[in-house]
Structures are given as C-alpha cells and as structure tokens.
C-alpha cells in the first residue's frame, strides 16, 4: 500500500474539529479526489500528507513508513505539490522553476536541464518557454508548468489543492486531460482536492466525499452515482447530474420491459398469429422450454406461408441479436441505434429471455435527461409491453 491514513484527526485549539477519524488506503497509480463543501476538511487532510499541517492524532504511512518520523523537508521533496494559486516563483525562469526540487535534491546542472526539457515537453509547451518568466505565460500555461514541476524529481505521489479552480472551463479541461494522462500513462498517484463534482467524477478512480471533517462516502465514481450514500451525497452530486449519468450507470435490466410476447418453436403458425393478434405485436420472440432465446418470428415470415399448421421452428429466424441484462444502457443504446432496430431482447447470463428494450424505453431516458424528471421509479404500466410491436414496421424486427 503506497499511502495509508488511519484514524486521522485534526482539532484546532478553539475546539473546531477539522478532520475526524479519516481512514484511507491508496494504492500506487490511483487517482483519489477529495470533494466536499468548504470547511469539510478536504484540504486539511491533504496538507497533512506532506506535513504542511500536523494531525492531532492518527498516523500516515507512505510505503509503510510513518511520515511523522521523517524529516519534513525530505518528505516534501519526495511529494509533488500543486496549489490553486499556482505558486510559481515569479523571479525565476520557467526552467529554474521546474528545476527547483531537483536542485534542492542536489542534482547536477546537466541532469536538471535534461529534466527541464523533458518536463516542458510533457506539459506540451514549446521548449523556448523555458527561458521565459511565469508572468509572461497565460494562467493555463503557468499551471501546466505547476503540474510538471511537481513531477520533476520523479515524485510518486502528487498532491493537488484545487489546482484548476481559477481556470476557465476550456483550459481546465485540457489540464484535466494532462493529469489524467500522467496518472494513466506514468502511473503517478494523485491526491486531488476539488469542489467541482464533474472534475472529481471525470478524473478519479475513487472519490472521497467529505462533510464537516468526516468521510461520507468513499467509492468509485460509478458506484457513487449509482448508490449515493445519503441525501448529502445526492445533493452534492446534484439531481441533474444523477439523471444525466443514468445511461452510464443504469443497467439494461432497470429499464427493460419484462414479459415480452413469446412463442415456443414447436407451436404452430396458427398459435403465432393468435398471439400476435392478442398482444397487438408484429414480432414474437421464440424461446425454448428453458426460457432460452432461440430466435424470433416476424409477421413477414408468417404472411408468406399459407399452411397454418406449420411449426414455428420452420419459419423463425435463428439469428437474433440481444443485450445482456447487466449491460449498461449507454452501451446498448449505441447498439440499438446502430442496428436500426425498434427493439432488442434482453437475456440473462444463461441466455434466458428476461425482457425487451424498446426504442420508447430510450425515449424515457432521453426525456428524463432533458426534462429533469427522475425515471428510476417508473415501471412499465402493464406487462403487456407490446406498444412498440404494434407499431413496428418491417425493419422493426429483432434481427441484426
């Protein structure tokens, strides 16, 4: 475990509890976002990691070593540090700024210069910029330097305190891409404090939600969106964002309509037509005795035959596309739209038919996302979910 924080507590002399029993274990290469309202203790917690603040009690270990027993100066040189106000030295060139920690560590000038060139390339800025002063750069460029400066001495852990809070949205996004790249491709570990939920959900491998010094929820962005721990988290995420996130967190089983119109292969064409008429559909899903999806029967196939005693098995299409009940909606929407079909059967892990997703189900999702009404509680009005079948045209089969 790269970083272990256990039972961290920070109490100020005036009795204010800034951090209360904070516990977290961070693996190498993780991207941890601390998020919370102001005064939630997120920055305080982060600043205890490089001993800019000292905990009242509790321990922090890096690679198993208690940081309280380390020299704070050495500790800080081994941890990258990026702050919202950037904190570049205005009287030093960009190169001197990047070389700051390597210089403190006593690297040779050649090695430092080499590293500076490498870092400016990493920041995706021109090499000539090394000779400029921070004041000559835009805010976004300055913070790019701020980010790579934190890596210049091969620091493994990078602490970031609302680093992009003061940047405009477009610049912020490009900086987010930069740090995401550093985490994914260089395997750096980030502890990232933010109050921007989009930023946290976008960057983090795990999000730590804090309120009044306490951890409210620690989980992956997906799980937090799917199961907000309590009302505080729901409010923090925001109703709108929860709804917008539905295609990415809702599974097919949550929006599918159960009990689609079915028929068995050994039944006859007459049975099929009766069922179609009764359910007002133009397509029947063919299942065997074990509920397994084996094909479908379209009205086209039926009308060409005259003998009503023909068994379904002779007429049905065996090639049927389907989605898994556990799949995310975002993925199946793609499929449904690409295939150009009106509906798609839903099967479980053993290919047993469990329901059907129609284009109208998707309309509900899109409607909710745009109009803001939660869709999660909505259940199909009736088990007879034949509406789509009824209006389906010839391309509206479940065929691929």
């Amino acid at each position, binding site marked *: 475990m790269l970083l272990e924080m256990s039972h961290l507590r920070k109490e100020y002399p005036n009795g204010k509890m800034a951090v209360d029993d904070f516990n977290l274990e961070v693996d190498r290469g993780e991207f941890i976002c601390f998020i919370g309202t102001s005064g939630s203790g997120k920055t305080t917690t982060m600043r205890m990691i490089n001993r800019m603040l000292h905990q009242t009690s509790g321990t922090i270990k890096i690679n198993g070593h208690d940081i309280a027993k380390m020299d704070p100066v050495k500790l800080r040189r081994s941890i990258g*540090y990026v702050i919202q106000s950037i904190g570049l*030295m*205005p009287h030093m060139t960009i190169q001197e700024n990047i070389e700051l*920690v390597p210089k403190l560590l006593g690297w040779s000038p050649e090695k430092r210069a080499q590293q500076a060139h490498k870092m400016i390339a990493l920041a995706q800025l021109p090499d000539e910029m090394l000779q400029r002063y*921070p004041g*000559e750069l835009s805010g976004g460029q300055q913070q790019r330097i701020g980010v790579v400066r934190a890596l210049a001495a091969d620091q493994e852990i990078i602490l970031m305190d609302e680093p992009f809070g003061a940047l405009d949205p477009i610049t912020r996004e490009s900086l987010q891409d930069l740090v995401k790249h550093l985490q994914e491709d260089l395997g750096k570990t980030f502890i990232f404090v933010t109050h921007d939920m989009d930023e946290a959900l976008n960057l983090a491998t795990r999000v730590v939600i804090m309120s009044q010094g306490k951890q409210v929820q620690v989980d992956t962005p997906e799980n937090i969106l799917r199961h907000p721990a309590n009302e505080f988290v729901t409010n923090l995420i925001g109703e709108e964002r929860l709804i917008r996130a539905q295609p990415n967190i809702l599974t097919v089983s949550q929006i599918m309509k159960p009990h689609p119109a079915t028929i068995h292969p050994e039944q006859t064409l007459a049975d099929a037509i009766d069922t179609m008429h009764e359910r007002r559909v133009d397509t029947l899903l063919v299942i065997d005795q074990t509920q397994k999806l084996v094909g479908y029967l379209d009205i086209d196939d039926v009308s060409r035959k005259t003998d009503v005693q023909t068994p379904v098995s002779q007429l049905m299409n065996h090639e049927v596309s389907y989605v898994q009940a556990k799949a995310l909606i975002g993925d199946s929407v793609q499929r449904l739209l690409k295939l150009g079909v009106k509906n798609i059967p839903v099967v479980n892990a053993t290919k047993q038919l469990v329901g059907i997703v129609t284009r109208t189900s998707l309309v509900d999702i899109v409607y909710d996302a745009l109009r803001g009404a939660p869709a999660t509680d909505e259940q199909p009005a009736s088990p007879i979910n034949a509406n789509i079948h009824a209006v389906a045209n010839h391309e509206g089969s479940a065929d691929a």
Partner: protein
Amino acid sequence: MIHFFTTYGSQLIAKIGQHLYISAIALLLGIIVAVPLGILLTRMKHGANFVITLAGVLQTIPAMALLAIMIPIFGIGSTPAIVALFIYSLLPILRNTYLGMKGVSPAVQDAAKGMGMTWWQAIIQADLPLAAPVIMAGIRLSATYVIAWATLASYIGAGGLGDFIFNGLNLYRSDLILGGSIPVILLALLVDYLLGKVETRVTPRQILR
C-alpha cells in the same frame, strides 16, 4: 567660489570623506541589524508591532538630544555619532523589510515550503529576492536621512561637513554655511541615485505580473 575652493578645497575633501565614513558605517550597521530583524518579525506571531513602534519612538527623539545622550556613554568623536545615526537608520529599513517580506504572496511561500525548501532556503531563494525592491527603497530612504543628519555629528566632534556649517553659523559666514550645505545635498542626491540603480538591479525581472 574659486576663493572658497582654494582656501578650503583640501579641507572640503577631508570633511566629505569624514561625512561619508560616518554615514556609511551607520547605514551599514542599520542594514545589518534592521534587515534580519525585519525578516525575523515576519516569522513571529507577536511582537512585530511592538518592535516597529519602538523603532518609531526612537525616531522621534530630537537629533540634538540623541547626540547629547550619546556623549556620556560613548564620549565625543565619531563613535557616538555613528551610534546615533545608526538608531535613526533603523526604522525605514526595518519597516520596509517587514512590509516587503509580508508582501510576498502566500502562494509563493506555501509553494516554497511545500516543495521542500528549508526555512532558510525559503527566505534566501524565495522571499528575499521578491522583497528586495521594497527593502532597497527603505535603505535609500535611510541613506538620505543619515547623510542629512550626519551634519549634526560635528556638534559632538565627529567632524564631517557639519563643521563648515557650524563654523559659518558661529562666524556669520554664509559662504561657509553654503559650502557645507550644498555638498551635503549633492551627496544625498548622488547616494540616492546610486542606490536607485542598485534597487533596479535587485528587482526581479518580471515583465508582466
């Protein structure tokens, strides 16, 4: 004019030398004491106001009185004059050092510490270069004060251009008064100009901010 120079020329050079010597030593001592003290004050939670007020009180002691106080302690000559002028030089340097160091952006200080600079490295590499222009402004101000007040040093036998002025006053000789005053003014202007050059040099190159 020419008569004045032919009569007092060599004496004038010697007096300017004395004057500069007294002023320079006093200012140097002022810098040595006030700059570190000013830095230290910014690192202390309490006491800054008290110390700066104290320096301010010292500043309000009339120059003549301060020189008179020095005599029983240091006798007469240049030593008491240097000590008195040193005390006067303290306040502007101390106050500007304190303000200059306080004015360094907290972000820079936070970054300096957070990246692993020691207390000392942060002061030398981050705070001091950034506070340098303000500190230099204080030193310039002190320098002009000290050069002007050094004329009074002649009153307690320290020599300097004040000798001309006091002699002129005693003998009702306006040429002597002017012969002392004008060099003092020129000296003050020259030193101020030179220190201004230094101030520009120590100002960090930041085209934009």
